Structures are given as structure tokens and as C-alpha cells.
């Protein structure tokens, strides 16, 4: 299954006007975390918060809805959130922590929980993991380079970045510039080339814009914890849902992109394996069953 195991898949968006204004798409990650915090389902969350430098996120422990709102919106460069987990549990004293992760971090998080070497009594305190869809991620310098070179925009003027409809969009105060996403190839992190996961298959809830119309997000609930929190937020009226389009611009597109990410990565994995390079995944001839499984 290219989308991993999930309980339900739906379109959703936050009903909160403030969240709608600042969030990337449907504001699901922001909305769910704020809801979970207010309802005391979690007592804090590790998020990609703002740093001293524009567009460079920094792992932050959010202890209030305000902290979470300050971290809203997608940043297209890495924020090593797992690095902050220990501090969140130790110095901040979180016992039911939330966290936002991209697929590679989701895998790391689950590994921490399965083999808690060096993180004894730490990883088991993560109560909610919101996984974000991710096609690839850029080192900060890459991002700066192609925005100033390809979009021709001063990095300091950028107000929002977005990927959609096959293009990379850069919004400034009075302009919207786009260039084909293909042109960013080569700038992504090396690890992204072997990543088999687009949809955070191991998270509690995963969300992203792929397969959703503007200002909506696709949401997949995957675990009991994720399902509970999501349905509670829907019942409380903080999140509205509508059925996912099965067709070309909905589920079909999500499946297609997830499959093509896996196929591309499998090719690179097989190549690297054939050269004897270390890759943390199985080559296609080593896999039993699904040749595209995230193992």
C-alpha cells in the first residue's frame, strides 16, 4: 500500500479564522496541536518554530497555543525536531508531548520508541505525532540560492513559499512568482533521494496539501491516538471535513505522487546498494512482498 495503513482519509481545514490566515493550507497541524493542548491531551509540543533568521526554522518546545501559532506555516528547510525531544521531556517536563515530523523524522521517532537507546523514558513520552507529507527537503543554503537565482527575489522579501501544481511558488508582499518544481532538483538533500515515504506512513495523523483543493488539507488518521484526537477536534467544531475527491486531482494524485516517489527512490537505493554503499533500506530484490514497502 503506497499510502501506508490508515483508518480514514478525508479533506479537512481548520475553522479558526486566525489559523486559516497564517497556516500553509488547511491549518490541520496547527489546529490539531492547539486543540490537543487546550484539551490537555498533550502538555506541550515540539514544533518548527521561528529562529533569528527568516525562514530558517528552529526546533522549539511550544507550551501554549500562541507558541504553536508562531510556528504555523511550512518551511522548506530542515528543522531537526527530534533533536529537541529529549530537552522537551527533561527540562520542559513534558509527559504527553506532541510533535510535528516529516516522514524521515517519523521513521526516526518510531525507531527511538522501539529501541530507546540513549532516550530511556524519553521517546515513550510522545503522545501524538503529526506527520507532514513531504516530497523533498532543501538545505537552507540551497533554498536561499534557488529563490534568489531562479525566482530573482531577495530572500528577505519572501512572505510565503508553497509547492503545488508542479510549481514552486514564492509570495512577496506584492508579487507571486513561480517556477517549475523540476528546476529545484539537485538542490534537495541527499537523503531525500532514497526516501520511500511521502505521507508519513508511521505517524498518528498525517496531513498535507497533495490531493486537496486550495486552503484544504488531506488528512489520514492512522492510529487510535490519531483517530481519537482528530474526531474530537471535528466534534468540537474546530475542524471541518469534506469527502476526498477520488479522482484525478484527489486520491488518485496522492497515490500517483507517493508511488512515483517510491519508484524513484527504489531506483537510487538499488543503484547505491549495487555499488556497495550503505543505505538504510532494503534493495528491491531483498524485499519480501511489496517491492515499494517502506522498509
Amino acid at each position, binding site marked *: 500500500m503506497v499510502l501506508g495503513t490508515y483508518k480514514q482519509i478525508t479533506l479537512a481545514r481548520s475553522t479558526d479564522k486566525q489559523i486559516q490566515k497564517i497556516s500553509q493550507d488547511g491549518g490541520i497541524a496547527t489546529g490539531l496541536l492547539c486543540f490537543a493542548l487546550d484539551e490537555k491531551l498533550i502538555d506541550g509540543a515540539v514544533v518548527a518554530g521561528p529562529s533569528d533568521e527568516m525562514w530558517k526554522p528552529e526546533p522549539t518546545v511550544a507550551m501554549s497555543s500562541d507558541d504553536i501559532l508562531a510556528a504555523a506555516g511550512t518551511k522548506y528547510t530542515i528543522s531537526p525536531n527530534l533533536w529537541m525531544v529529549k*530537552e522537551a521531556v*527533561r*527540562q*520542559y*517536563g513534558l509527559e504527553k508531548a506532541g510533535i510535528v515530523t516529516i516522514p524521515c523524522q517519523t521513521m526516526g521517532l518510531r525507531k527511538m520508541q522501539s529501541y530507546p537507546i540513549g532516550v530511556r*523514558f524519553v521517546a515513550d513520552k510522545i503522545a501524538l505525532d503529526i506527520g507532514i507529507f513531504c516530497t523533498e527537503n532543501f538545505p537552507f543554503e540551497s533554498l536561499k540560492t534557488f529563490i534568489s537565482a531562479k525566482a530573482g527575489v531577495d530572500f528577505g522579501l519572501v512572505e510565503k513559499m508553497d509547492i503545488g501544481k508542479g510549481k514552486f511558488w514564492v509570495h512577496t508582499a506584492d508579487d507571486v512568482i513561480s517556477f517549475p518544481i523540476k528546476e529545484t532538483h539537485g538542490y534537495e538533500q541527499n537523503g531525500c533521494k532514497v526516501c520511500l515515504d511521502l505521507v508519513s506512513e508511521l505517524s498518528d495523523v498525517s496531513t498535507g496539501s497533495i490531493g486537496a483543493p486550495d486552503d484544504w488539507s488531506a488528512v489520514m488518521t492512522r492510529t487510535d491516538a490519531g483517530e481519537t484526537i482528530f474526531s474530537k477536534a471535528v466534534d468540537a467544531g474546530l475542524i471541518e471535513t469534506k469527502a476526498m475527491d477520488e479522482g484525478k486531482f484527489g486520491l488518485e494524485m496522492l497515490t500517483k505522487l507517493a508511488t512515483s516517489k517510491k519508484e524513484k527512490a527504489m531506483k537510487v537505493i538499488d543503484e547505491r546498494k549495487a555499488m556497495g554503499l550503505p543505505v538504510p533500506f532494503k534493495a528491491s530484490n531483498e524485499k519480501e512482498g511489496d517491492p515499494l514497502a517502506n522498509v
Partner: protein
Amino acid sequence: MSERVVISPTSRQEGHAELVMEVDDEGIVTKGRYFSITPVRGLEKIVTGKAPETAPVITQRICGVCPIPHTLASVEAMDDSLDIEIPKAARQLRELVLCAHHINSHAIHQFLIAADVVPEDLMVTAINSVSEIRKNVQYVVDMVGGEGIHPSDVRIGGMAKNISETARKRLYGRLKALKPKLDAHVDLIIGLVADKGFPEGLGVHNQKTLATDVLYGDRTKFDLDRFTEILPESWYDDPEIAKRACSTVPLYDGRNVEVGPRARMVEFQGFKEKGVVAQHVARALEMKSALSKAIDILAELDTSAPVMADYDIRGTNKLGVGAIEGPRGMDIHMAQVNNGKTQFYSCLVPTTWNIPTMGPATEGFHHEFGPHVIRAYDPCLSCATHMIVVDDEDRRVIKNEMIRI
């Protein structure tokens, strides 16, 4: 006709040691000798010539039973050598982590003596009680020290980080809730030790006690001039034992002393009792003092205050002394820093002080009580080991000087 009873290694303690008792016809100990046979690891030498920050990281690995006192003694020694005045909040956090560790370590010891004093039908209760207490206080060590076993956040110049307000409140709540449980636990242990019916006067000796503080440690109370250290050859009257003993004999005012919970209570709280029962009682009572101090600190800790001082790492070759009252007694680390490197490092650790006192304390009673006397000191041998150079073949001492490795 005197006979020898040898227990080697003595059990239910940390590290390896040997108890050699000479007994008369009735089995009464006439001469007791206790000495460390734990091999040397060389930690004092490892840190010499390295950056000062190395010392706390390496010396905390002296022992997994009490890494906290070693870390604290090490950073205190470095603070002293580098003339650092640490911020108030850092001092509070250090005291807090040590208080929690005292309770944890004493609880471990009560688990170790459970087989001696706890009857079968209460064993599960006693062990559950120990586990419950340890779980709660180790949580404090985890949060404040950064790690439960080898605390990473205790640093030269203070602490790496202050805890958050949420963490403070959470710890405060946890420890408050622990109070009734701990009180019940202390009553249980004291009651069980009394019920065991150790003979009157077991383990009583007339040596002085030595302690620097009620719980934390105070370098000004340790007078280096009154301290001497002699080789086992001049202490043990049996040349064979003297050769095999792995630790030096530290003396204060030229005499051997007792350190530990009973010593602290005698020095600072007017405690008068002596012997095995008194040591167990003092240890149990000290858990209460440590918990109430920890709660006090958490009540007044300012979580927004700075916890790290500015300092110059280069040093002036001043001999720094760090004195920490560990669960088993006074732990002294000494360090000299010059040109940004540790020039000299030495540890005077709790059980080393107790070793010369423990053997004679077994005298006058049946040898079967020997292990009880030893365990009452809660010896921890791995830190109490220094070394001499011996010939590999006949174990002859080649260099008759204690080489600090």
C-alpha cells in the same frame, strides 16, 4: 587457637573487597581487616593533561551507583580552581539533584540489605516501596541532571540549563506526593532493622566521624592540612594483605574516621547512636531530610534565573577542592588547572575513608555478623581504588609509593 575466616569478595555491595577476620575458639572476631581488591581503571590519570571539561565527564564514570556526587565534586573542584562563583539557581539545582540522588542511593542500599532484615512475608512490600521511591526521585535526576545515570547538564560554572516552570511545578507535585510514601518507607525500614535484633553494640567503634555538611558538602570544612594518606603497608599489620590491598589509607588528624549518613548526623544533627543499627537508622532518616530539602528548593527555585557563570577556562594553577557529601560519605575531588589543561587530579572518595574503620568494627562479635557490619557502611569499592606497582610474577612491590592512577 586463632583461626581465619575470609570472605572474598564481600557481597551485596558495589565493587570487590575482601574481609579477613581472625576468630577465637568461640568464633568471636579478634582482628578484622577489610580491604579493596577492585582493579584500577586509571581515571585520575586519564583526565590529567586534558581540558577541564573532560574531568566531570570522565570521573562520573567512576561508578554507576553514585555518579552524581562524583560529577558534582568534580565540577566543584574545577569551579574552585578556576575561581568561579556559580549563580544561586545553579547551586540550587545542584543541591536538588544531589538530594534526589541521596534518596535514590539509600533506597538501593535498603534493597541490598533486604535479604538481611526483611522477613519473607514483607519482602514484596519492601521492594515495591524501594522501587516506587526510586522511580520518583530518579525522575528528578533525569529532569534536572539531564540524564539519570551520568548527568550531562551539571557543568563547570553552573548548570547547562535551568528547568522550565512546568517542570518545576511537576517535580514539586511529584515530591509532595512522595512525602507520605517516603515517611511510611522510612518507618518500615527502621522497624525492620529493629526487629532483626542485631546484638547490642554490633559495629560500634570509637573512631571519629567526618562530614562537611548536612547534605551537600562544603569545601571550607575540609582542612587539607589535617589530612594525610599512608600506604597499606604501614597500615595493615599483615604483609600479605598489605600487598594485595588496592587502596591507600586516608587519615584525618592521623586517625582513621567514619564518613557517611551516620557521620553527617553526628556532626550536624546531634545524633549519638553508634553501630550497625544506628547506621541503618541514620541512612533512613537522611532520606527524609533530603526530601524536605528538595521540596524546599523546588518551592523557591527561580526558573528564569541564569544558571551559568562566565569564566576563564585557562586557570591559574590554583588547587581547587570540591567537597560533596555523597550517600556513602564525603567525596573530595582536587584539581589544578593551568593553561587550559588539568595539571593534577585526585579523588578522595567516601569508601576509602571507611575502609580502615570497617575491618576493626567487626571485632568483638561472632564472625557471622561480619558481613552485616560491612554492609551497614554501604561500601562502594569501585571508586576507592588506587594503585601500587607490583612485579607480575611474584607480586612483589617494585615501587613502594602509591601511584595515583
